[in-house]
C-alpha cells in the first residue's frame, strides 16, 4: 500500500506523542522512587536509594503482594476453566438464547466496576456475614471469566471447525479431539487470556475495595492506604516501579508466543 509522505509524518508523530504520553508518568514514578523529598514537587531536589531498601523489608508490602498473587492465580484458574467451557459452547453450537448468553458474558466488564462491587458486597455481607479472601477471589473470577472467554472465543472463530470435524471423521471421540487437536491450537489464546486476567486481577482496586475484609490487603489496597502517607508514598512508587520492570519480560515473551501461533 502506498502511504503519502504527510501521512507517514503524521503517523510517526502520533506514535511519538502516544509513547511519550504513555511513558511520561511511568518515568516520573521511577524518578520519584529515588526522590529524597516526600512531597514529590517538581523538579526533585535530591536523590536517594533508601526507599528501595525500605520497601524490600516492608512487611505490609510482602503480605499484600503474596495475597494479590494468590487471589490472581486462583481467579485466573477458575476463569480459565469456566471461560474456555463457555467459549466452546458459544463458538461451536447454535442454540436458543445464544446471543443473550453471549451478552451475559460481556456484562461483568461492560457494566461499571462499582456496580459489581456494591452488588457483591451487599450479597456477601448480608448472606455470608463476612468478607474473606474467598469473596475477593469470587469477585475477581467473575470479570476474569469474561477476559478468557473473549480470547478463546475469538480463537475458535479464527480456527473454524474443519480440523475438529476432520479428526472426528477419522474416528477420534470428542475428548481425544479436544486433547490432541483443539487444545494445542487454543493454548496460546488461553495463555494470552490467562495473562491478561492475571494482570487485571493483580491491579484491580474498585471491586476489591468492596469485597475485601478487614486486614485482607491485596497490593492495590495496600497502595491505596499508603499512597498519600508522606513516609510511605515513596515506597509505593518503588513497588510500582519494580512491578513495571519485572513484568516487561514475561509480557514480551507472551506477545512473541501469540504472534507466532497466529502467523
Amino acid at each position: 500500500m502506498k502511504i503519502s509522505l504527510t501521512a507517514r509524518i503524521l503517523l510517526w508523530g502520533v506514535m511519538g506523542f502516544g509513547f511519550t504520553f504513555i511513558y511520561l508518568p511511568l518515568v516520573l514514578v521511577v524518578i520519584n522512587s529515588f526522590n529524597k523529598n516526600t512531597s514529590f514537587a517538581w523538579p526533585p531536589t535530591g536523590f536517594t536509594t533508601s526507599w528501595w531498601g525500605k520497601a524490600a523489608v516492608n512487611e505490609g508490602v510482602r503480605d499484600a503482594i503474596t495475597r494479590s498473587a494468590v487471589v490472581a492465580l486462583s481467579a485466573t484458574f477458575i476463569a480459565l476453566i469456566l471461560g474456555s467451557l463457555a467459549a466452546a459452547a458459544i463458538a461451536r453450537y447454535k442454540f436458543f438464547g445464544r446471543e443473550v448468553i453471549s451478552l451475559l458474558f460481556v456484562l461483568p466488564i461492560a457494566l461499571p466496576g462499582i456496580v459489581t462491587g456494591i452488588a457483591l458486597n451487599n450479597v456477601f455481607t448480608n448472606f455470608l456475614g463476612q468478607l474473606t479472601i474467598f469473596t475477593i477471589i469470587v469477585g475477581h473470577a467473575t470479570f476474569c471469566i469474561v477476559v478468557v472467554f473473549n480470547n478463546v472465543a475469538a480463537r475458535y472463530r479464527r480456527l473454524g471447525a474443519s480440523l475438529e470435524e476432520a479428526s472426528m471423521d477419522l474416528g477420534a471421540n470428542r475428548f481425544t479431539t479436544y486433547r490432541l487437536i483443539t487444545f494445542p491450537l487454543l493454548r496460546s489464546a488461553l495463555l494470552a487470556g490467562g495473562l491478561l486476567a492475571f494482570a487485571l486481577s493483580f491491579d484491580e482496586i474498585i471491586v476489591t475495595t468492596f469485597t475485601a475484609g478487614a486486614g485482607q490487603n491485596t497490593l492495590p489496597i495496600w497502595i491505596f492506604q499508603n499512597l498519600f502517607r508522606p513516609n510511605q508514598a515513596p515506597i509505593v512508587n518503588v513497588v510500582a516501579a519494580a512491578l513495571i520492570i519485572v513484568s516487561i519480560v514475561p509480557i514480551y515473551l507472551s506477545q512473541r508466543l501469540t504472534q507466532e501461533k497466529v502467523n
Partner: protein
Amino acid sequence: MRNNKVRSYAVILAASTLLLAGCSSSSDDAAGGAYAGPVQDTPGTINVLAWPGYAEDGTTDPNVDWVTPFEKETGCTVNVKTYGTSDEAVQLMQAGGYDVVSASGDASLRLIYGGDLQPVNLDLIPNYADVFDNLKDRPWNTVDGKNYGVPHGRGANVLQYTLGKVKEPSSWSIVWEPNSPAKGKITAYDSAIYIADAAVYLMSTKPELGIKDPYALDQTQFDAAMALLKQQKPLIAEYWSDYTKYVGAVQSGSITAGTSWQVIANVLNGTKATVGATKPKEGATGWSDTWMISSKTEAIDCAYKWLNHIITPSVNAQAAEYFGEAPSNSKACALTANKDHCKLYHAEETDYWSDVYYWKTPTEACLDGRTDVKCLPYAEWVKAWSSFRNS
C-alpha cells in the same frame, strides 16, 4: 415406628424454629447484657477501627507505636484500620468484621440503636476510674443507664492555615466569604456533618436565624446553612476526608486554609513549622470520642484489654499528644512529653469547651429541646449534602 418418626420430626421442627428465632437479627440486641468477665488471658485477634492517629502501630512513623507493646504484653494481635468520616465508621461497623471502634458522638448512637455495639462492663476496666468526671456517662455513650465504652479524648475542628501564605485568621470568614484572601485554595470536610460548621458560622453572622445548637436545624435554618455552603463552593480546591491526602495537598500548595484536625497540623509541622491552627472566635464543631466494642466480636477478652490499655495514663498521654487533643484520663496530664499539653488543649477546663459543639447525630426531635418545629434528621442532611456536592 411411626410414633418415633413423628416425635423425631417434631423435635427437629422445634429445634429448627428455636434456631431460626435465635438467628433472626433483631435491633433489640442493643439491650443485651455486657460481658460479665473476668477478663481472661485468651489470645486472639482484634480488628480495630480507629480515627487516624488513635491507634498508631508504627506504620506512619516507626517511633510512634502504642500497639506493638500491647501485642507483646497481652498476646493479642491487633489489625488497625483507619477511617476518614463517621459515616464510614458506621458503614464499616454495620458491615461487620471489626471488634473495636473509636466512635465520635455522631456515630455512637446510630451504632448503639442499630445493635452493632454491646454495653461495656466498666468494672472490668480498672483505668476507667481515672477518667475525667465530665466525660463519664455522657448522652452519646450511655443509653438507659448502660455504658457503651470508655472516652478517648476530645478536641475541636481547628482552622488551619499555611504560614507565610495566609495571615493568622481570627475568624472562620476566611473560608466562607467570597473575598477571602485564600480563595481557590480552601478546603472543607467532605461529610454531611460539615453542615453544622456552616450553622456555627451563621450563629455569629446571622443571629436572627435563632440557631442555638448547630445540630438542631429546622428547615429555614437548614436552608440558610446550605446557601452558605453553595456560596463557599467556588472557593474550594478540594473537599477532604483522607487526612494523608490533605497533608500532601498542603505541602504542594494547592490548599492554604480550611477546617482541619490538630494531628494534620502536627504531621505537617513535623520537620519544620508549616502551618498554624486556631479555634476562631465563632467557635467550632468538635468531637468527643469513645472506644466501643462490637456486639459481634469473638475476641471479647482482647477487646476489653485494648480498652483498658488505650486509656492507661501513659498511653492516653501518648495518643493525645500525637493527635493533638485533650486526653480523657486525668493522670495522663502528668505524663505528656510537653508538660503544658493539657493546658494547651484545655483538658482540665470547661470554658474553652463552651463554644465547641461536639459531633452528634441530628434527629427529627430537635436536639435543642424545641418542640414547636421539626428539625431535619441526619438522613436529610446526607441527602442535601449529596445533592449539593453533585450540583
